[in-house]
Structures are given as structure tokens and as C-alpha cells.
């Protein structure tokens, strides 16, 4: 039973021809009000000219520090923010401009889903887990009530939750369990691409390992493409094939994850790597900002 559904899901994703995601020259400018009474505006460029493409079943890491623009990219991809320039194609369809109708939004929802960082605010506190997933199934899939009930149990099982846990409210689940529910809710739409915006960053180390394994299992089984946004390079190594390093809205390096983490070419990437505590690591006074601004002046 479960296998049949899984293979159907795999088919669904495989039916695409061409890349799952194509982004070219993506740009986002925020207007920041400044001055007395906020009359004077100045433009803040959050993302400048990001381009990448992602094949089905592959996983792309977007790494960077706070203010690098990585979350802004995620928000533009799923349509929470509107791009100021450039183009976004997901599953072969353009989504550079906001959806014009509810059905258009729903179709985009079935192509790309997102999991957020904070498991404690990612679920409606008044909705039981079953109802939460049921709502998504009703939205995207033509299923009878019985089929939906069956599918909910399968989805919960896929993310390692029991049938009983489907009956409870989010407050009765731990942070890691809630993040599993958020993943199940995203999977319910059977998207071609899953955006994970710091999805394991708020979790304890032992729970983080569980979720990383879960994500890798799901990708293997469904051939879904991931866009994995994180500040944690060690986690990016475990989950992605390609990586894009962002600094202040600009892509400074992109390529195979292994190559970037083993033999980085950009100085900023090197600095990021050198800052990660690991056995034998000694904190050094790098003076990150000073060193880099000096370097960029040269």
C-alpha cells in the first residue's frame, strides 16, 4: 500500500522535463525609510544578481551569514516576497511575478513547498496534526475522505510519527516532532521542490541528526529537489550536492558542495570555513569585517 503511493509520488516528480528550478539574475531591493518622519527613502539591495539552476532530485545549499540575503531568496522563490528583478522558473513555469488568482497560487503551492526554522510557530496552535495535513490534502488532491485518512497515516509514518500523534495539538509535541509535522505538511502537497529555510538550525544536536537523516531518506525516495538554506556548513555538507555562498546579497562562490568545502577559492568562503569550531580548532582574532573590507578595497 505504502509502496504504491511512494512510487506514484516518484512518478509525479519525474514527469518534469528540464530543471526543477531555474533562477536568473534574481534581485531584491528593499525600500528603507530614513530621515525625520521617514520622508527620505534609501534603497537597500538584499539580493543582487543570483543565478542558479537545480535538477530534479538534487539538493542545493545556500549558505551565508545574517544579512546575506539567503532567507530573502527563499521568500521570493515561494512567493512570500516579490522579486525586484530577474526571473524564477519552478517546474518549468515562470513565477517571477505574484500569482494573479487563487488557483494559480494553489498550483504554485503544489510545485514548491517550504519548511521554516522555528517549529514552535510553524503550526496553527488550534489545529490537530491530522486536521493540519488534511487541510493541505483537500486543497491539492482529489481524494475521498477515506483516501485522505490513509494518506495522512502514510505521511506521518514517513516522517516518523505515529497515528496517535496525529490526534494531538502541536503543544503536545516536542520541537523536533513539530518540525516533522511541518515536513509532512509540505510533503502532502507532493511538490517538485522543497525549500528548507534553516529547518534544522533551531533543533538540538541529537534531534538535528534525526531530521537530517529523514530529509536525506525522503529525497532518495521521492526524487524531490531541495533548496537547503543554512548558516551551518557542516549540515550543508550532509544534505546538499551543490552550494552557493552568499555575502551581503552577492553570490561569491558556487559549485559542488564537496569542492567548495574542501577547496574553497573565495576568501570569504575560506573565512567561513575557518570559523567553524571542530577538533583542533583554536579561536583566532580574525577581525572578520576589518580583514574583508580591507581585502575588498584592494
Amino acid at each position, binding site marked *: 500500500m505504502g509502496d504504491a503511493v511512494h512510487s506514484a509520488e516518484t512518478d509525479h516528480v519525474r514527469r518534469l522535463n528540464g530543471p526543477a528550478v531555474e533562477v536568473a539574475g534574481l534581485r531584491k531591493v528593499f525600500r528603507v525609510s530614513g530621515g525625520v518622519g521617514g520622508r527620505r527613502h534609501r534603497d537597500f539591495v538584499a539580493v543582487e544578481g543570483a543565478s542558479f539552476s537545480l535538477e530534479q532530485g538534487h539538493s542545493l545549499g545556500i549558505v551565508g551569514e545574517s544579512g546575506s540575503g539567503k532567507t530573502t531568496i527563499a521568500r521570493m522563490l515561494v512567493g512570500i516576497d516579490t522579486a525586484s528583478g530577474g526571473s524564477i522558473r519552478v517546474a518549468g513555469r515562470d513565477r517571477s511575478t505574484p500569482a494573479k488568482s487563487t488557483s494559480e497560487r494553489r498550483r504554485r503551492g503544489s510545485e514548491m513547498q517550504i519548511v521554516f526554522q522555528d517549529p514552535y510557530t510553524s503550526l496553527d496552535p488550534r489545529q490537530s496534526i491530522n486536521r493540519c495535513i488534511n487541510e493541505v490534502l483537500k486543497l491539492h488532491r482529489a481524494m475521498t475522505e477515506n483516501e485522505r485518512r490513509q494518506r495522512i497515516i502514510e505521511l506521518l509514518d514517513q516522517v516518523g510519527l505515529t497515528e496517535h500523534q496525529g490526534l494531538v495539538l502541536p503543544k503536545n509535541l516536542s520541537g523536533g516532532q513539530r518540525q516533522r509535522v511541518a515536513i509532512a505538511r509540505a510533503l502532502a502537497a507532493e511538490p517538485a521542490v522543497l525549500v528548507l529555510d534553516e529547518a534544522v538550525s533551531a533543533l538540538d544536536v541529537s534531534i538535528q541528526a534525526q531530521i537530517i537523516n529523514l530529509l536525506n531518506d525522503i529525497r532518495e525516495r521521492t526524487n524531490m529537489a531541495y533548496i537547503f538554506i543554512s548558516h551551518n556548513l557542516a549540515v550543508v555538507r550532509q544534505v546538499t550536492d551543490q552550494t552557493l555562498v552568499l555575502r551581503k546579497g552577492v553570490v561569491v562562490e558556487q559549485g559542488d558542495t564537496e569542492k567548495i568545502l574542501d577547496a574553497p577559492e573565495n576568501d570569504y568562503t575560506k573565512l567561513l570555513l575557518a570559523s567553524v*569550531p*571542530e577538533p583542533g580548532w583554536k579561536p583566532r582574532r*580574525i577581525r572578520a569585517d576589518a580583514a574583508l573590507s580591507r581585502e575588498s578595497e584592494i
Partner: protein
Amino acid sequence: MTHLLQIENLSVDLVVHRRYRKVLQDVSITVEKAEVVSLVGESGSGKSMTARSVLSLLPAQGKMSGGIAFDGQSLIGASYKEWQKFRATKAAMIFQDPRASINPVHRIGDFLTEALVHNRGMDRHEALERAATLLEQVGIDDATRRLRQYPHELSGGMLQRVMIASVLLIEPQLILADEPTTALDVTTQADVIAVLDDLRAQRDMAMLFITHDLELAAAFSDRIAVMYAGFIVEVSTPAQLHARPLHPYTAALLHSRPMLHERTARLPQISGRPLSAFEAPPGCPFQDRCPYVQPRCSESMPQPLLIAGSIVRCHRASELELVSTVGAGGGQTHG
């Protein structure tokens, strides 16, 4: 010999929803002069509460038993005044979120000099000068201008440096740092940690460093205490901890962290979730998640054992041979 800080059999219960809940159980740890001890654990392990207990910063209606002594003098039963004096001169805390612990309507200069001017009666100009010197040392350029700025004008990393400067200014013998870099970017974290450790070492200050990051703790600690469900389950040196962890929880933590330089096909995961002290079953709190569990583990909490210079609380510590990385043994026992 007297220890700078000695915590002995400390147990703490806090009121949650009108009920007492255990947060610390039988915690014993010492910090020597100029030594860095890290408390490492996941959420709910009680690491922050241990540090707060040292400064008597527990929420109201907390129940506390056991001993805390500083430089040989017991702090238990000290009056409010004595605690204040202790906090103003002997020990100081750096919190995780500097923005929440620095008054946003005061200038940086006022914040930094407040303690010196009010508690030590130092001249304001002299205090400002000292503050400026220290700001330069913690890596803030243009210090005299910064002193006139307000907290919202500084980035998180800058503010945490200000926080560190404020702690160094009162020249305590002991610094308690509660996840001081968790909210910062990695590059900033590396720098802030380096600053903190350099300046602390120059002044012979001891530090109790609280973090969830084992690697970070290992980078500059003299000893590491691993906490789980309100207990300290293992105390060891960083080298020893990585080479031969004695407690199954420590080993599991080391295994399950993702590695920067290699991709693990499947991270060895600990089933279940970290427990808080009040949820823990009788006996060893780790029993439900432990791959080496035996019937006796649910009968009693193991007493601390001294093995090869490390302290461990596990019934099977002497027979298990745990490793820190997953090799051919796959994290299983070799013995």
C-alpha cells in the same frame, strides 16, 4: 586547597504551573582560579540554571539544596546585600542576548561606567577612559565615538563585545558566560570567543562557559562537563573527551554531530528527544535512549566514578569502550 568556585550536590526545583519541577539534580563541579570550565548540554539539561544558581539569579520560589562556595566561603544563606556585593565585584555574567541585557535608552558609555561610578565611586572621566581602552581591546574601533552611541546603533556582535568589556571592567575573578555567541554569525563568534579568552587569560580570570556546542567548548576549555536532564554525566578534558568519551550520552552526542569535512551516509542518531530533569525516569535519566541499557540502569542513578582522570556517572563506564567518531565499529562496543 580551596577551589575558586565549588558547587556541591546542588539540586534546584522551580515552580512551573504551581508545581515544583526539578531542574538540577546533585550537581557537583569545581572551577579553579584562571580555569575555563564548560557546561555542555542540550535544551533542558540545566546548564543555564547551574550558572544562574551561582549568582542566585533563580526565579522566585525556587528551592535549592546543596552547597555553593566561592574562594572557600559558602554563599548559601547569604543575605541579599551580600549577594549584590558578590555580583558587583567577584563574579559577572555574560548573557546570550546582549540586546535584552543592555538598557536601550542609556548610552554605551553610561552602561559601561555605571558599575564603576556607583559601586566603586570612581571618577566619571576616569571610568570613561578605562571603558574606551577596554573597548579597543575587545576589538571596537573608534571607541570614544561608540561610548556616545546607543545600543540600537550597534550590531549584535558589537554589542556582545560591549557586554564582554562591561564584565572585564569590574575585574571579577569568575566570568559566567551563558551561550554568549549562540546568536552571532560564525565569523563573529570566532572573533568574540578569541577576544574573550585572550583578555580573560591576561587577567587570570576563571570562566564557567555554557554552550550546546561541544566543539566550541573543546576549543578553549580546560575541562568540559556534559549535562543531561539536570545531572552532570561526565567531566573530562577536551582531549580526553574526544579521544575516549566515557558516558554513552557523550559518545552519542559526538557521533550525531554533522562533520564539516566528510559526508556521513547516515548520521548515527540518538532515538527519542532530550529530557528535562522533571521528565526523567527514576535511575539513570539517559536509560530510554541508551544503546547499552541494562536492568540496573532503571534502579539507581550511578554515583560519580573516577576513571582515567575523568568523572563519569554510568553503571557501565568501566566496561564500555566508546569512541568519539564512527569508524568500523559503528559506535558499538569493542569490548
